[in-house]
């Protein structure tokens, strides 16, 4: 597990949930100002003696990439976190921000964990006791956001490839460690430097092949809004109405939407992903139950769930059951088909929703109100500062593998596998596999299943 330290330099990027012209990268820690030098900004010594300041400059990144930026800096202890803090305001382009953060991480910064900036602020006495409740709640919420984002990323092709990479790395570590801890065993043969460098080269190729994140990954990083409800509640009609074009096939047949449809939507300047889920209800055939599963997953992993209820029918006990599973602050109740019912909703829902809206997708009534409400909800969401993985996070992994290769190829008679092992371990740790057990348990398992150990 990646351990939060208290004074190393952490970095967080406001990646483009918002279609904003400005992107902000924040650094906090002892080396925050030194790291600026890696992007071609040196603060004049006289400036760093004062409390805070700003300058305009061009950031220099690898591959001769140059970005205009305004850099604000705040000296410890008079900053948000109580440590040296630098804020880089630059163009809001996602690839540019990614290149910038990747380069700073390569230069020694560590990606901040959810809530870590705020935690440091509290630990350094920059927030008072009254604010601590809020701090803890925020950390928790960011962790949840990050976890949801991570799960969504998992469905993209990227994450399985990282898992595979981790698996191969673990196998290689097992081969190296076996040669250290079990030399006396009959069939343990220390991996040769040639085999070792070859295996490392393969891993490097694999990382390079993972390459740039596609559109799908960017989407996974955006907040998700799921439309859920019983079959035929009008989810697809609302989906189309919100998007303004016929994306989903709308028919009055129960259970028409069998898969999760998603599309990008911009609400109040925030880009989000709208998902139309299959109707939840008793599943008849296999295909339908698979669709239900996908819908449940989508609802579980969305920042916001719009629960649609056909106002012409009674509230169903199954709806109560499903809605209870969605945390209260993430669910909104929408009564649909209000054009068909002059009076009001037939029966109120037995569970609480923070907000409810009545709409008619056909007449358009209630839709502007719903849009405004959604925009407000999105605006209130905290962006996760840690969590999800993207390709540029593999920079430190590559660097560690390069060091391992160097140790492995310095031949001679006195081979030092322990040095190779150290760098391979760093490579594994840099993959930041959330929810993974300790590496050595896996390594031992692999050694013992591969070699007959035991005198």
């Amino acid at each position, binding site marked *: *597990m*990646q*351990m*939060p*330290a*208290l*004074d*190393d330099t952490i970095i967080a990027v406001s990646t483009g949930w918002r279609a904003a012209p400005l992107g902000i990268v924040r650094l906090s820690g002892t080396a925050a100002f030194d790291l600026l030098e890696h992007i071609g900004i040196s603060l004049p010594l006289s400036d760093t003696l004062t409390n805070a300041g700003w300058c305009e400059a061009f950031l220099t990144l690898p591959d001769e990439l140059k970005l205009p930026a305004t850099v604000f800096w705040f000296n410890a202890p008079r900053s948000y976190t109580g440590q040296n803090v630098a804020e880089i305001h630059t163009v809001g382009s996602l690839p540019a921000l990614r290149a910038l953060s990747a380069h700073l991480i390569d230069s020694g910064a560590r990606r901040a*964990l*959810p*809530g*870590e900036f705020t*935690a440091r602020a*509290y*630990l350094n006495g920059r927030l008072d*006791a009254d604010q*601590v*409740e809020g*701090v*803890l*709640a925020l*950390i*928790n919420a*960011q*962790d949840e956001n990050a976890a949801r984002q991570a799960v969504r990323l998992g469905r993209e092709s990227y994450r399985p490839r990282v898992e595979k990479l981790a698996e191969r790395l673990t196998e290689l570590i097992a081969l190296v*460690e076996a*040669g*250290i*801890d*079990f*030399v*006396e065993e*009959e*069939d343990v043969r220390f991996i040769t430097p040639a085999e070792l460098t070859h295996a490392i080269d393969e891993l490097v190729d694999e990382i390079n092949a993972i390459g740039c994140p596609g559109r799908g990954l960017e989407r996974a990083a955006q907040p998700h809004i799921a439309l859920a409800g019983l079959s035929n509640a009008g989810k697809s009609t609302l989906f189309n109405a919100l998007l303004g074009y016929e994306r989903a096939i709308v028919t009055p047949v129960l259970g028409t939407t069998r898969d999760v449809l998603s599309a990008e939507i911009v609400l109040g300047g925030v880009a989000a992903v709208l998902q139309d889920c299959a109707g939840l209800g008793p599943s008849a055939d296999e295909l339908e139950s698979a669709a239900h599963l996908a819908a449940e997953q989508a609802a579980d992993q969305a920042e916001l769930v719009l629960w649609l209820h056909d106002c012409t029918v009674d509230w169903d006990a199954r709806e109560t059951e499903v809605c209870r599973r969605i945390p209260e602050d993430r669910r909104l109740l929408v009564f649909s088909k209000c054009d068909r019912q002059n009076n009001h909703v037939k029966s109120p829902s037995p569970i609480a929703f923070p907000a409810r809206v009545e709409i008619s997708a056909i007449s358009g009534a209630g839709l502007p109100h719903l849009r405004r409400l959604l925009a407000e909800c999105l605006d209130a969401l905290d962006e996760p500062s*840690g969590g999800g993985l993207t390709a540029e996070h593999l920079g430190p992994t590559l660097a560690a593998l390069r060091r391992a290769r160097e140790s492995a190829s*310095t*031949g*001679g*008679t*006195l*081979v*030092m*596998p*322990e*040095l190779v*092992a*150290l760098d391979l*371990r760093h490579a594994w740790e840099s993959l930041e596999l*959330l*929810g993974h*057990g*300790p590496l*050595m348990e896996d*390594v*031992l398992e692999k050694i*013992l299943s591969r070699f*007959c*150990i*035991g*005198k």
Partner: protein
Amino acid sequence: MRFETCRMAAGTMRAKHYDVLVIGGGHAGAEAAWAAARLGGSTAMVTFRRDAIGRMSCNPAIGGIGKGQIVREIDALGGLMGIVADETGIQFRMLNRRKGPAVWAPRAQSDLEDYAATLRRYLEDCSNLTIIEAEVESIEVEKLTKHSRNSADVESVVTGVILHDGTRLSATAVVVTAGTFLNGLMHTGDERTPGGRIGEAAAIALSNSLRRLGLELARLKTGTPARAHRDSIDFSRVAEQPGDPDPVPFSFMHDGVTQSQVPCWITYTNPAVHELIRSNLHRAPLFTGQIESLGPRYCPSIETKVVRFADKDKHQVFLEPEGRASERIYLNGISTSLPRDVQQAIIGRIPGLENARILQWGYAIEYDFVPPEQIDATLMTKRVRGLFLAGQVNGTSGYEEAAGQGLLAGMNAIHYCTGKRPIILGRDQAYVGVMIDDLVTRGVVEPYRMFTSRAEHRMYLRYDNADARLTPLGREVGLVDDARWERFQRKSRRLNELRALLDGIQHEGKSLRQWLKRPEEDGQRFSKMYSELSDLYRETDVWASALVEVKYAGYIERQQRSLEQFRQMEQERIPDAFNFKEIKHLRFEAAERWTAIRPHSVGQAARVSGIHPTDITVLLVALARCERDSPPV
């Protein structure tokens, strides 16, 4: 009198009172009793049989990779194992010598009887230590009222033991080092014999007593091979394995090994042997369901090897003499619980052993242990104050692992008596620290053995610098005597001299330090060229330490940073009575896990399984808040 508790006991009961009472005389018990007595506590060791103290139940060897480093650490702290192993060793080898010095590890074959006798003599000659031959019937405690507890887990405090004959011994601290004796049950074929070791009784009452104290017990399994008569082996058919030409001792107190060395031998099993085993699996307790508990995966029986690695057509069998003149040869590699007739047939098909006369049959043993989440990092149980557990009772395997825990338990038992701050060894400080942290933080599923790969700071936890890591601590505690302290200081001086020479001597235009940076260079040739180096080269510890510093220079610097980060988190202490369930916004799972394990530092909390990085952030904030709300008095 130093020990407050002695006064108290004298007034309250008539029974003989000890500061520390150690149950068991194995490798853990010996170190625990030695440490407690040497630190000035009146100590008693209660064991079934005086003549079985320090007996090696399994292979006649000390050390090995990971384990050898532990022996050096025990020695650096002032324990017994390294000294006794040196005095009674009959073959010494430095393993991994062709790799970097961080993973060098000493190992020695021991004269088994000599080892036990020598260890016993040290204990018998030790003042403050009484050896009592008896069986412990029960551990006595005093229940604490809710009011007098200082932590939610503590239920009672230890007051002594009652022996089988009814005698009551009062004690401030009790250390249980019962090894495989707790409810031990031995298996050879369908023959089942209660006992802790071949020919010795099991401790059944003690096991029940631990359970009555509220401790949860579980079972593990281990095994041992047959021993054959030396005269019945055809040595012309096996290959000889000599020791190192320049044997290196375990103890920092010894300059070298003076005794002559004896060889071991190696032979192999073959397809005929494997076929025989396969056709008799219906009689193997490990496969019939007769043995239910889990054994170590890294130390499988021959029947398990044959089944799991069916494609292999041979397995090694090391022939290890149990002593310089012993007639008993330990058949290392074919541990088994198959019936005797099958064992005889198997062994008879191995080259060199065709006519082997078996002096002792192989057997498997199942025994009770106390899943170690129930103790804290000082080895004291969380439920019963003053009750310490060390060795196999904590789910470990191996003499060295047991001895390391025994030494620490002995020291902490004394600190408990005197009210001094308990000693916790860190993962950055010693393999013993890595082991104990693993045990108490993660528990065990199979008998725990040390591997160097378990240590994240392996570059720093080396065999050569165990003294630099631990001797100052041993001195502070009081276990390191003047002679050892002087030697340690002398070594530090010599190391400085060598460092100066490596920079000072120029060879072909480059300093020796620069030469030694080359991977293939171990410096031996320079020791012959420059006379001022020749003595230093012979001081193995000094030479190795300097070599390591040169070779690992860049890496040690890099590790230093992660070491500092690690220490920062270890130093963030969590108060004993801290209530994890009261931390708002902490994930339910994290609160549950931490309440069960009761980590003593933020670092340990992070190592508990199933913890997210954000849980740690939440914990740090909650701890800071707790500190701000209630400033230290």
